[in-house]
Structure formats: structure tokens, C-alpha cells
């Protein structure tokens, strides 16, 4: 499954970079994230619960490893998720470019989803990932606006 697109953040690239890599911000903004911890510079571990429609019980342990990180321009994430209902693995590349007063983010993820969740919910994976990503990016944008307006983290 390929998920790609662009998103505009109304703030400077350095601030967006910091937000995107801040585990506390990720935990707050990414839908279903129960916890996420930065265990080393390039490694995050967390737990995510997917809840959509009839599916309310899909919990995944997720490990994200950062590769070719070039602040503040781009990074690549290796993603591995494992749960009772299936697994996901793949990578996602993120680029950040200045765009007027804001930042344009480009993302391309190539993910494989398997196990029961894929067998039962295959036809919904694309829609669900798009929806969760949109909710996450919208929440991240609100967080950015909040910080730029002088609010605390």
C-alpha cells in the first residue's frame, strides 16, 4: 500500500521539523497513539490502537527507526508494527521545503499490512490510512499554530 501526498504547515521549517520528531507531539496528534517513547536518537517505540467502525480492539506495538536524517530537509522512517491482529512494515520518506512563510511537507509511505487485520479489512486499509494521516496532520497543524501563537507545549 502506498500512501503519498503533501501537506502545508503554516510555520517555519525548523519548527515543523522539531514538532515532527518530538515524541510527545506525536503521541498527542497521531490518532490512536497510546504512548510513544524516543529510546535513542534514531529510534522510537510506542503502542497504537486502531479504532474504526466495528474494529475497536486492534492494538499494535510499533518501532520506528530513522534513517538518512538531514535536518531540516528530509528523513526516512523504517516502520514495524506488530499486534495480535496482524503486522505492518515498510518505510516512509518525508521532505520539508520552505513555502512562502510556511513549510510544504511531502510524504511517501510504502507499507505492507498483513495478518487478520488485512484479511478482514483489506478494502478499508487505504481509506483508514488516509483518514488517520489526515487527522494526524490536522492535529499537528493545530499544535504548530498553538506554539507559534505563544502557547506552551
Amino acid at each position, binding site marked *: 500500500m502506498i500512501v503519498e501526498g503533501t501537506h502545508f504547515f503554516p510555520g517555519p521549517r525548523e519548527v515543523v521539523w522539531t514538532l515532527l520528531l518530538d515524541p510527545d507531539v506525536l503521541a498527542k496528534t497521531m490518532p490512536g497513539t497510546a504512548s510513544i517513547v524516543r529510546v535513542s536518537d534514531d529510534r522510537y517505540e510506542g503502542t497504537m490502537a486502531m479504532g474504526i467502525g466495528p474494529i475497536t480492539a486492534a492494538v499494535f506495538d510499533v518501532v520506528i527507526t530513522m534513517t538518512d536524517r538531514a535536518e531540516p530537509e528530509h528523513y526516512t522512517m523504517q516502520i514495524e508494527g506488530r499486534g495480535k491482529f496482524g503486522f505492518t512494515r515498510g518505510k516512509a520518506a518525508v521532505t520539508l521545503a520552505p513555502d512562502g512563510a510556511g513549510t510544504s511537507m511531502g510524504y511517501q509511505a510504502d507499507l505492507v499490512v498483513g495478518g*487478520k487485520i488485512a484479511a478482514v479489512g483489506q478494502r478499508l486499509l487505504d*481509506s483508514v490510512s488516509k*483518514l488517520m494521516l489526515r487527522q494526524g496532520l490536522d492535529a499537528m497543524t493545530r499544535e504548530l499554530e498553538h506554539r507559534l501563537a505563544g502557547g506552551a507545549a
Partner: protein
Amino acid sequence: MKPPVFEYHRPGSLNDALALLGGHPGVKPLAGGQSLIPAMNFRLAAPDALVDLNALPELSGIEETADGGLRIGAMTRHCAVELSTAVAARAPLLAEAMPFIAHRQIRNRGTIGGSLAHADPAAELPAVMVALEARLVLASMRGGRVVPAAEFFTGLFATALTKGELITAIEIPPAPLRTGTAFLELARRHGDYALVGVTAVVRLGAEARVAGSRIVLFSVGEGPVRATHAEQSLAGTAGDATALRAAAEAVQRDIDPSSDIHASSDYRRHLASVLTRRALTTAMARAADSVR
């Protein structure tokens, strides 16, 4: 496969049902159980308690209302709607859609309210209800309210229902004169989830021109998708082949279908235009027939 342990309630009155639904945090209403029970058996859903609505006869039945419309109880089975002469006469679009819902065994058990509350993006009934401008009658311990179908479906498996709230009935207004409707869907096998589906309602005005239309697609987005660009393109035209082709083309600006193993996004886009043109052709012919 067996579901995880859950509490089971079978209330004998709507009030008791609403009290139970409002009381537990992890409670789900059980209607026909054609989506919820498989999800529980796969252990993808694990409600703490179920409130079975099957002992509430007041939630079932099809009533012809004095204004020429219909009122259908939420617990009415799909098969009852499918076989109803009142539905065939007063809401032919709904009657035409019913055989496309899953398989007969499922239609014998599944309910109209259950399907609407589930809000599957590939489901037929949400699109039909939006096309027919139906109203959903909701009840909870806090009272009742009526929500237009167009406002009820809010996203992927998401509806306007709040915690503890139930659909009790669906009200379908009478069809205006000189109206024609059509329903089309394509699936690889009968009973599969639709690759794309289209519902069309066309109303003719003076000089047989299109006075208004409602074109609602499903399985091309997060829920029923109203094709407003296509509707605008059709308005005021004679509904001839050129106008219908233009409307079918305009549908492309209304949808953002997903890809899955059954069909790519591009293929769904192609199907959406083809099915829209065919559905509009049929709806136009039926509207013209109703004038004679």
C-alpha cells in the same frame, strides 16, 4: 470462532433499551447482527455488553404516511423492505437497491437501521437515503431528534449518533411529480461489496427540462458522496445524451476513490462515470414515462 465474553441484555421496551444503552460505557446495540457479530467473532470488536433490540416490535414495520411518504421502523428486516408493495410504489429507488444488499440470508436477518448506523462506505442504503432526502428519527434518554440523511453520515463508519442514541425509524418523503430514479452498482460477484454504486433521482420541470437532481455515489469515498458538480452540470438541460455525458464526466470532480485489491482508484473513477451515465439515462426515461 467465538466472541470474547460479553453481557447480554434483551429489554422489552424502548425505554429500558435506551436506559441500558445510556448506562454502560462499552455497550453496543444489537440489531440484525450481520456486521457486529462477525466482527466480535473475529475478535475485532469487543463490546462489554450487547443490548438486543429484537424484542421491541414497535421498532419494526413499514407504514404509509398520509403525506404520501413512508415511515420504516429501524428494526425492519431488509427482506421486509425488499418485498414491500408500499416501498415499491412510494420509494422505487429503495426497492431497486434492496436485492443488491449482500445475500438473501443476510437480508433475512439484517435491518435497515443497523445498516444505516454501521455506515459502511460500500453500503447501498446510506446513499439511497441521502438521494431520497430521508430523515432519520433518533432517540436516547435525553430525548428524540430528527436528522436529515445528508447530515447523518459524517465519515468512514461515522454518523451523527451520539453515545446512547438509537435510530428508531426512517422517514422517506413523498417523491415529487415527474420524478424518475435509478440504482446501479457493480461488484465482481453478486453480494460482494460494491466496487462502485450510483443512485440517481431526476425531476423534470417545464418543457421536460431537468429541474433538479440528486446523484449520490457509494464505495468511492468515506461514505455516501453527493455528486454536486454532476447535479449542477445537469440542471436546466434537456437531459439528452450530451448532457448526461457531461454530468457523468463532472462526477470525476466529486469523488476521491481508494484503491484496494478489488479495484484501483483509477478503475473506480472510470466506473463511476460509466455507471452515472447509465443511471441518469434510466432515471430520465422513468421521469419522462411518469409524465405521460
